[in-house]
């Protein structure tokens, strides 16, 4: 009888001990279980809404307004008389606003051909893991540019002849905290081009990459291959056509709180797709490159 009650007490003590240790570990697993798996979106795939010249998949979030000032100096090979390009400047001013977290609109004005532009950028897919898995970001850009420069005699003086249209798809992936890569197929239609041999429709494939050197400094490279058929081959001085090059840009992003500075070297003068994809005249090989910078300041209109 005594033995039996001892055994029972032993069982009881063991039971109590077991339940205590079980409930101790339970608290953590209980918390884990009660939280639904969350979706974590990849943010800051690029530091700015531009890789260098071209758009990145990044955009302003809802009620955030970005004021962008972009500036390109003259070509380096202009020599000492033009202080290696620093005497000249091309400026682009833009206001860009997030209507929702996935829809951004923007307007801009450039001294390059006195261009006015407006664009819409839509984020269709966001890279994520967790409850929802998505390997890439996918964004779409539609932009219209109007050249208001009046000196080109080839251009008819009606409004539509000044217009060109850009359609762009951006496919990007943030591979890790430092490295992101973007592919940018682009289609540009120009209603009128300066010479007969130039194509009205341009197809281009852009590649952009960024590598973070530190938390606040990133290194970017951007290249657009532009398909021009035999345009450049038959381009001779007597046709009056200009020889165009594929834009290649190398830049550094420096982020300081509310600003992002982008400093770059590029062979493009223009800062909008129609210009830098369609009309890049500088050649890296002959020093036709420029120093430039973009400054971005973000204002929040969220309450």
């Amino acid at each position: 009888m005594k033995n039996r009650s001892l055994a029972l007490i032993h069982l009881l003590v063991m039971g109590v001990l077991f339940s205590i240790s079980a409930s101790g570990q339970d608290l953590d697993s209980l918390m884990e279980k009660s939280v639904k798996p969350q979706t974590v979106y990849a943010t800051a795939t690029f530091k700015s809404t531009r890789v260098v010249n071209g758009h990145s998949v990044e955009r302003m979030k809802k009620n955030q307004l970005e004021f962008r000032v972009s500036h390109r100096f003259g070509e380096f090979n202009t020599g000492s008389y033009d202080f290696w390009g620093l005497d000249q400047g091309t400026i682009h001013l833009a206001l860009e606003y997030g209507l929702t977290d996935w829809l951004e609109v923007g307007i801009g004005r450039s001294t390059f051909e006195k261009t006015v532009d407006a664009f819409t950028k839509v984020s269709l897919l966001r890279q994520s893991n967790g409850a929802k898995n998505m390997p890439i970001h996918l964004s779409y850009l539609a932009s219209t540019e109007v050249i208001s420069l009046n000196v080109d005699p080839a251009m008819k003086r009606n409004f539509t002849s000044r217009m060109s249209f850009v359609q762009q798809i951006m496919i990007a992936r943030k591979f890790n905290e430092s490295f992101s890569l973007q592919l940018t197929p682009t289609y540009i239609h120009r209603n009128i081009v300066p010479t007969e041999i130039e194509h009205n429709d341009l197809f281009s494939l852009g590649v952009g990459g960024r590598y973070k050197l530190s938390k606040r400094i990133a290194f970017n490279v951007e290249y657009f291959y532009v398909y021009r058929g035999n345009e450049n081959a038959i381009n001779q001085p007597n046709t009056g056509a200009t020889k165009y090059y594929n834009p290649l840009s190398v830049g550094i992003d420096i982020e300081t709180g509310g600003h992002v500075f982008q400093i770059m070297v590029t062979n493009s003068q223009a800062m909008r797709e129609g210009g830098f994809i369609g009309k890049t005249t500088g050649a890296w090989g002959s020093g036709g490159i420029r120093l430039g910078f973009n400054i971005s300041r973000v204002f929040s209109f969220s309450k």
Partner: protein
Amino acid sequence: MNKITLIIALSILCFTAGAQNVFITKDAKIIFNSSTPLEDIVAESNQATTVIDIEKNVVKFSVLTTSFKFRRALMEEHFNENYMESAKFPKASFTGKIVTPVDWKSDKSIIADITGTLTMHGVSSEVTVKAKITPGKSKIAASAEFKVTPEAFNIPIPSAVRDKIAKEVTIKIDAVYAPFQQLP
């Protein structure tokens, strides 16, 4: 025979007791504030999960750092990218012991000391927090306010923004717990 019945009853009680002494909420509010005269830096998360075990006087918190919402989207991005490194350290957590004895049967508020370990940015640090606890049968309310420094959690503040970010970050917590219901 009676004893065996008693033991069985007791052990059943032991196993179910684990759930009856636990209170939980999945939407506790955490506000953090590191504002200075130069910049308003306030963020709020309503997605903290927290449990209280009133038998062992243990309290636990867990929150995803990406769940903190800022007024400025850019600030939120920098918070996750540059300071908390949320991709590397997605959660902040706290495990503490309620040191001051609390009469869980009363419904009077009490200011209790809670000592425990706060872990964020991969660094654990001991903190003691004064919390206001209001016990109850069907719910327990708790709130607390305390200060931490970024340095304690190995979060460097660059000199360019040093003046814009408060040296001490104030953290406010508000939670209303309900009895834990066994998951179906």
